[in-house]
């Protein structure tokens, strides 16, 4: 066995998993004997997983695919039966027709009372029969729900979870509709300030401990715990220590009820109004998959979208809260020519004419690794046409061990693969600055960056004959620009990013651009036509497919084939 | 100098022409406005209701008995309606084809007004013929102009870009063409009898020989029914039928643009009535008496006679609206194509034969 094999051979297929036969609701199916647990290690298949494979979802609160199993909510109780063994012969007892006799899980001393097992933690065995739809199972679920609701305040009208609350959903699906409980409910603290981003309502908590397990086992910050006894059980942090790490808001997603709510989203919008758009987080090169919740062109929240190849079901708080700039009131809304408002046609025509007239090599383009791959590809085409040097701007931060990448640009790899920047972003920038200083570069086109922060100061910008800046928010560069072309945030257009691991992921449009702003690809297309670089497709799909044909790194890819999870390319 | 000007035929023509146009237009508009009131009052009486009886300017109400009476009759209602139409919000939906949407109401109302130009509404007044344009082909002119009226409705329906108006427009185009044929053919026999296309001559013929309705009763019936269809009045108001098409072609219209459609319908109705009076009821003449008036009084009397006949016919139009339910579309087409056109054709043949026999 050589350990010096840099080019690892194609991974061998995992050994075939042994299958066992069981019955779910009287229907015989074959399930693998082991399945991956929350860390991906093979573990004996549980009843819950088997029911899932059989197409029968078992309700659950504490169980979560990506968390250790706790088995404390009891919601997943399922009636089951196992083949009877003759204790003397150790042989299965057979019915008259030759089929094995099944022992149902009812208590021996109280035969009418079901005695289910928690499906999330009970492994299956050959010949087992599961009854997730039996009257006994239904009765158990009803009883569990009634007990969970004993102290629940039922304040859904003021609860942010309403609409995506598991307690609501299961009560409708499996609950009894009425309560036999007449005593006063136990009242616990409401609106407890747990940390800088989290509010806890103890009355609503059903003590599933998902949040406790997440912070301990995933985030690695053992901050939460359960204190007190019996009816007075509550979630709490260590006295005087706030619940504050970069992943706290995941507990809000995990919380099946409205106990943990986000301060940022608190009382902002009811979830049933939110339009959900599949998108990608732009805060770092990890490219976590997100769902944008928006209503009428206002973004209200980001939520992580499960993708095991990128972020699992999690995302960091920093990325999640980084959406307010899209709705900022000082967004660039107008097309400006020398400070005066103008139309897109006039501005694009003028810029195209001046760029087309500029001698080769006198134009430079600074693009941004926050732009979509398609836009970067179009910028590269434009640069090739004009003979212009290009680069993008690096943006570094601190990485952590979980999701945050040191590269804070979402599309550095896109910029590299399309040829905008060299192997490392930003190494051509000093050359461009020198060119401006020497007077060889007289026109500069900047996309989405403030170049005064990156070595091309205001004094250099003042020397330029033509400075075109396309950006989303105003900065020193747009203030100095002769032409300002307002662009769009990722939530306002469609496109793809290539993350740090080379995964090409697409994102969709959630809200309309502000003011006159347009997606960059649209006016790049017009600039290309205006400078005589030819026609390119008008849609994001067409652009991506055309780019895949032209750029070797994306060879063979298609927009439609990217799917929701993305596709890896070598980087 | 002034005498010279007055005696100059061109000046006379222009001056009297303008005067006649203004007067006729004013009278027509008043008729349109009050036809609406009469319709509302008459329908109310037929349906055991009261009708408009609330509108009155405060000053009028102060007049002891008359004020209350005028208010009760709703005399001021048309004025209030007019003011309301002007003040209502005039909106254009976003999704319409704007140019057509804006010109369609005008196209509807203009032909209706143009038709009046050739109607001889009196004999002579001070030596001046009481017709705005004494055309040789008056009847054909009327039909040509009326046939253009359908564009207003069709374009309104199409440009509204909405399903009910569209259905209304489609219905209207088919209905108008169908009944134009029957109407035109019914008039052919009238023309055969009089031997002239000039409406003035036709009236003079009737003044001499008696009303044409007695010569051509079948032609009159066909013309009358077709006139109902051409003006989109009940029982043939399928282009706007409220119960199924909301408002038909004018569903998306409001304010003055809607008012133009409304005025177009009533102006059309009055024009049809005037046409029928001219063609079948001897115009300004009374049965078997009357020649072009020589005196001012006679001239005014003739105009009065014409208007009286016209009002009676307009009342018939209004009465029928509250008498009959709407036809089904296939019944409407059946009536037009399978009853009226063959009947009108037969009428032409019979008339021609009789005329030939009389001549020989």
């Amino acid at each position: 066995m050589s350990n010096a094999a840099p080019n690892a051979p194609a991974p061998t297929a995992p050994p075939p998993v042994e299958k066992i036969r069981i019955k779910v609701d009287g229907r015989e199916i074959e399930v693998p004997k082991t399945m991956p647990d929350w860390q991906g290690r093979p573990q004996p298949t549980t009843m819950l997983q088997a029911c899932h494979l059989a197409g029968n979802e078992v309700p659950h609160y504490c169980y979560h695919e990506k968390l250790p199993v706790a088995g404390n909510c009891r919601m997943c109780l399922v009636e089951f039966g196992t083949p009877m063994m003759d204790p003397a012969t150790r042989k299965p007892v057979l019915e008259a027709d030759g089929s094995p006799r099944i022992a149902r899980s009812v208590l021996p001393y109280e035969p009418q009372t079901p005695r289910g097992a928690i499906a999330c933690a009970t492994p299956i065995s050959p010949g087992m029969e599961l009854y997730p739809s039996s009257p006994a199972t239904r009765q158990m679920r009803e009883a569990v729900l009634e007990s969970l609701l004993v102290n629940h305040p039922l304040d859904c009208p003021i609860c942010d979870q309403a609409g995506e609350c598991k307690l609501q959903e299961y009560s409708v699906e499996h609950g009894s509709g009425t309560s036999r409980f007449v005593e006063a409910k136990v009242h616990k603290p409401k609106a407890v300030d747990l940390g800088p981003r989290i509010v806890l309502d103890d009355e609503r908590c059903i003590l599933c401990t998902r949040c406790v397990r997440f912070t301990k086992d995933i985030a690695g910050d053992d901050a939460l715990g359960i204190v007190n006894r019996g009816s007075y059980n509550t979630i709490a942090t260590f006295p005087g220590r706030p619940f504050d790490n970069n992943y706290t808001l995941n507990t809000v997603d995990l919380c099946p009820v409205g106990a943990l709510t986000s301060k940022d989203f608190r009382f902002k919008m009811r979830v049933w109004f939110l339009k959900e758009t599949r998108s990608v987080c732009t805060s770092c090169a990890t490219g976590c998959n997100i769902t944008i919740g928006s209503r009428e062109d206002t973004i209200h929240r980001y939520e992580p979208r499960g993708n095991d190849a990128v972020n699992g079901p999690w995302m960091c708080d920093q990325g999640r809260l980084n959406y307010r700039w899209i709705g900022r009131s000082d967004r660039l809304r107008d097309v400006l020519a020398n400070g005066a408002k103008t139309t897109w046609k006039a501005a694009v025509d003028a810029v195209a004419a001046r760029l087309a007239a500029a001698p080769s090599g006198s134009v430079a383009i600074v693009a941004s690794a926050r732009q979509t791959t398609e836009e970067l590809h179009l910028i590269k085409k434009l640069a090739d046409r004009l003979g212009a040097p290009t680069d993008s701007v690096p943006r570094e931060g601190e990485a952590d061990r979980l999701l945050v990448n040191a590269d804070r640009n979402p599309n550095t790899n896109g910029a590299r693969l399309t040829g905008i920047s060299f192997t490392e972003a930003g190494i051509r920038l000093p050359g461009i600055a020198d060119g401006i200083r020497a007077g060889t570069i007289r026109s500069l086109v900047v996309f989405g960056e403030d170049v005064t922060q990156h070595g091309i100061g205001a004094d250099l910008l003042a020397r330029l004959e033509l400075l075109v800046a396309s950006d989303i928010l105003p900065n020193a560069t747009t203030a100095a620009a002769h032409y300002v072309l307002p662009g769009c945030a990722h939530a306002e257009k469609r496109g793809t990013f290539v993350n740090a691991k080379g995964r090409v992921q697409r994102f969709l449009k959630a809200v309309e651009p502000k003011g006159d702003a347009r997606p960059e690809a649209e006016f790049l297309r017009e600039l290309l036509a205006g400078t005589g670089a030819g026609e390119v497709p008008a849609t994001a799909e067409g652009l991506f497919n055309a780019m895949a044909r032209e750029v070797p790194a994306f060879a063979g890819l298609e927009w439609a084939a990217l799917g929701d999870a993305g596709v890896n390319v070598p980087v | 100098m002034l005498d010279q000007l007055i005696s100059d035929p061109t000046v006379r023509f222009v001056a009297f022409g303008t005067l006649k146009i203004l007067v006729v237009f004013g009278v027509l508009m008043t008729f349109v406005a009050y036809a609406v009131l009469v319709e509302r009052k008459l329908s109310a009486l037929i349906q055991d209701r009261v009708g408009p009886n609330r509108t009155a300017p405060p000053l009028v109400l102060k007049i002891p008995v008359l004020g209350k009476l005028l208010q009760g009759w709703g005399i001021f209602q048309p004025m209030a309606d007019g003011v309301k139409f002007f003040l209502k919000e005039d909106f254009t939906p976003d999704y319409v084809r704007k140019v057509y949407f804006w010109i369609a109401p005008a196209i509807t109302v203009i032909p209706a007004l143009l038709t009046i130009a050739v109607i001889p509404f009196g004999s002579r007044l001070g030596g001046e013929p009481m017709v705005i344009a004494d055309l040789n082909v008056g009847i054909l002119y009327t039909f040509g102009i009326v046939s253009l009226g359908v564009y207003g409705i069709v374009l309104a329906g199409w440009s509204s870009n909405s399903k009910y108006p569209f259905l209304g427009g489609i219905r209207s185009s088919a209905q108008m063409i169908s009944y134009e044929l029957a109407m035109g053919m019914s008039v052919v026999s009238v023309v055969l009898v009089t031997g002239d296309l000039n409406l003035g001559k036709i009236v003079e013929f009737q003044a001499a020989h008696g009303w044409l309705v007695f010569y051509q009763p079948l032609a009159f019936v066909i013309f009358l029914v077709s006139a109902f269809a051409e003006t989109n009045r009940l029982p043939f108001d399928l282009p706007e039928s409220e119960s199924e098409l909301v408002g038909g072609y004018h569903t998306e219209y409001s304010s003055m643009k809607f008012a133009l459609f409304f005025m177009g319908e009533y102006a059309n109705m009055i024009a049809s009535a005037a046409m029928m009076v001219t063609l079948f009821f001897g115009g300004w003449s009374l049965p078997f008496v009357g020649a072009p008036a020589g005196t001012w009084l006679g001239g005014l009397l003739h105009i009065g006679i014409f208007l009286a006949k016209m009002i009676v016919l307009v009342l018939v139009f209004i009465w029928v609206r509250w008498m009959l339910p709407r036809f089904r579309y296939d019944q409407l087409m059946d009536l037009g194509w399978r009853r009226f056109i063959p009947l009108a054709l037969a009428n032409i043949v019979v008339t021609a034969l009789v005329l030939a026999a009389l001549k020989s």
Partner: protein
Amino acid sequence: MPAFTDLLFFAFAGLTLLFGFLCVANPLSRNPVTSAMFLVLTIVSMAGLFVLLHAFFLAAVQILVYAGAVMVLFLFVIMLLDLGEEERRKLNRVALVSGSAAVIGLAVVLGRALLAAKPMAKAGAVAADGDTGALGRILFQSYLLPFEILSILLLVAMVGVILLSKKESR
């Protein structure tokens, strides 16, 4: 006032040509309904020309039949078929050549006919003041055969339409 009539003639002739052009090659709109409406305007302006020739009957019939009936049917069909904006097509070379050949040929024939014709010999006498009687006499005496043939042609077309549109009945 001959000058005034001439002015009117040029106005109507110019409008006819303008509307005709807009009907087939409207640079602003490729909508079939717009084209149809410009055709209506063309027909109406042509009726104006007839009026200037004192052919009132012809003018009235032109508006009545073409503008009032035929074009309404056109519109009816356009709306029912819900035709969208017409795409601006690339010129087909074969069509271009054959089309221009046809236009040139037609122009030559028309030019020769116009050159050969005697200017205004007795046209005025025939249609004087839109005399329907004279028109009728020409139509039913001099040109009876062509008239009847045309009528039969229309009849054939009508029978054809009825046959085509009739539902199969067993």
